[in-house]
């Protein structure tokens, strides 16, 4: 597409705990282009949030540590910046919206104070300018009576409204990259639809790149240009959205798609769950981390962890047996006719 905005290379994050070292992120490499929406999909413990917190340098150290990796944002390795330099980037060029709008706002400050803080800090605005901009931002995320509501406290807002305030805060300094960590997971579907609608519109208007972390394949299908599927701290498959849904080539992605009931499918035969549990991140297997739960496993999978291999046009899968997956997945996905592969 266009210029690379964020280039993450071989990033690892570990946490030293009493039970041993937790390998949360195990060497992920990916890029985000300017104006692109990247979906990061995975279950709890797959490392999707931790990898993004590492990018934002929000991992507490200790117990956290980053044994390797580069996070190049606009030519600068964020991991090499000093705390003060990083503070200039965070909330300014790269902003993050967190999952839980109930706990990520400060309950004793008005939301006006919380939004204008970043504006005064990063944009050098005075109080009046910042307040004016804050009203604009709240209007942008469709909060009615924005002017009056600036003086309200977080508890006076509903969950959906708080998440909008969070998005407004994230957007306050017009970041080039917005990282949204499950921003709609705590919300009801009708409110979720409102929020995704707003984000799509703003992305179009502001032209920023978005990394959208989620476990919900449905939400991401309508939002992302490209998707990284994560499992046990590895990216196991990456492709353009349409390609990934039409042509999944990792057993885990196929398993995820097979285990969710779909609104447009009736009460049919059984779902195909992924049996078993994800591996313990303290004692990761030497082979493929998905081995225990995989229906396509072979001896090689036990011995050697597969790297990401090119399996199609801009499509990579970390599976030795992706050809077998290609043959058998339609059966698992209960598809009668395979959908056409998008160009």
């Amino acid at each position: 597409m266009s210029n690379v905005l964020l280039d993450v290379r071989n990033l690892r994050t570990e946490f030293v705990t009493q039970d041993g070292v937790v390998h949360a992120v195990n060497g992920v490499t990916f890029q985000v282009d300017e104006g692109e929406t990247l979906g990061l999909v995975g279950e709890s413990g797959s490392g999707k949030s931790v990898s993004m917190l590492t990018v934002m340098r929000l991992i507490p150290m200790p117990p956290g540590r980053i044994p390797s990796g580069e996070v190049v944002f606009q030519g600068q390795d964020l991991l090499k910046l000093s705390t003060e330099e990083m503070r200039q980037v965070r909330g300014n060029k790269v902003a993050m919206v967190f999952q839980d709008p109930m706990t990520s706002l400060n309950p004793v400050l008005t939301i006006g104070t919380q939004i204008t803080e970043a504006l005064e800090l990063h944009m050098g605005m005075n109080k009046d300018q910042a307040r004016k901009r804050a009203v604009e931002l709240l209007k942008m995320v469709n909060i009615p009576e924005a002017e009056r509501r600036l003086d309200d406290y977080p508890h006076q807002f509903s969950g959906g409204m708080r998440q909008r305030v969070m998005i407004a805060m994230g957007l306050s300094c017009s970041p080039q990259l917005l990282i949204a960590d499950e921003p709609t997971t705590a919300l009801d579907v009708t409110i979720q639809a409102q929020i995704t609608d707003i984000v799509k519109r703003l992305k179009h208007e502001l032209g920023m790149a978005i990394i959208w972390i989620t476990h919900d394949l449905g939400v991401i299908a309508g939002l992302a240009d490209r998707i990284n599927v994560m499992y046990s701290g590895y990216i196991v498959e990456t492709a353009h959205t349409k390609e990934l849904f039409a042509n999944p080539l990792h057993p885990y992605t196929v398993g995820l798609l097979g285990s969710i009931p779909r609104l447009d499918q009736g009460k049919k035969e059984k779902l195909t769950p992924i049996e078993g549990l994800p591996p313990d991140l303290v004692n990761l297997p030497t082979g493929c981390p998905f081995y225990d739960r995989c229906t396509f496993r072979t001896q090689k999978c036990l011995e050697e962890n597969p790297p990401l291999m090119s399996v199609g046009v801009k499509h990579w899968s970390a599976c030795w047996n992706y050809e077998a997956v290609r043959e058998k997945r339609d059966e698992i996905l209960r598809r009668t006719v395979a959908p056409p592969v998008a160009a």
Partner: protein
Amino acid sequence: MTTPVQTPDATSALPPTQTDANNQALLQVRGLKKYFPITQGILFQKKVADVKAVDGVSFDVHPGETLGLVGESGCGKSTTGRTILQLYRPTEGQVIFRGKDLAQLKSEDLRKMRSDMQMIFQDPYASLNPRMTVGDIVAEPLEVHNIVKGKEKKERVQELLQIVGLNPYFINRYPHEFSGGQRQRIGIARALAVNPDFIVCDEPISALDVSIQAQIINLLEELQERFGLTYLFIAHDLSVVRHISDRVAVMYLGKIVELTDSKALYENPLHPYTRALLSAVPIPDPLIEEKRERIILVGDVPSPVNPPKGCRFHTRCPLAIPICKEVAPEWRDVGNGHFVECHVV
């Protein structure tokens, strides 16, 4: 097993509801209301208002079926489930289970009835006592209802664990040693221990990861077939409810606004709220998502303390007409057991 409690003929003198012609419902809920008081004052608390969590719902549950109850948070779906099981005593209305009105039963009779009705809770982390072993947790209902004792009890517990797909040797372990999905299985084993006919499943999979959700859904379906269970399945996820339910009731602000079989609800939704709710559910397919038209509702759900006059949905309804603000619509049958509460459709 208990002395029959005198209840006036339960179904007469009630507003007409969706009773089937052959009326063989296992459970009939009639005009059920649950208000929670809001009080003020420290020493002399006086009631200043009510949270009208459930405000007059009526429906039947037939033996062997799964009735889905969907709605957004705060619509009263969990309260409905709990009020049916008399975990909350209803403010008004009847809950007729096998011809007996549970709302009239005294505590001892009710306790005996509980062996026929059980509940599976949402949060597998909060609904198991962390100080009890799995064996004790699953055995507790057996003891309370005096079903089996001694060695037999242990065998029964092990059998139950096996039924829900857990290793029977786990009986001496504690809940914290299990993952979320396994804990939910323990909760299911506990519910099954007394051989119930009717189980209220209150968001049993919402707290679980996607790949684990399917395991639990499949388990619930298997158990239903094997033991002839009847479920009231409460959830906010419409895709899951469509998958598991025979019929679905949609709740909004303490009322059921639409009830029909799940195929009709998804293919021919009539109530504007149901339509908006369905259109908001994302479908994991980018090609379909591209073409879908969303009905985006404005605003939030109003407070159940002061629900809007007239139709409760009129403040957010895209189809509202003047009458909606004044008169509450009636619950009516539009054919084939499809019930809806709306002036417009």
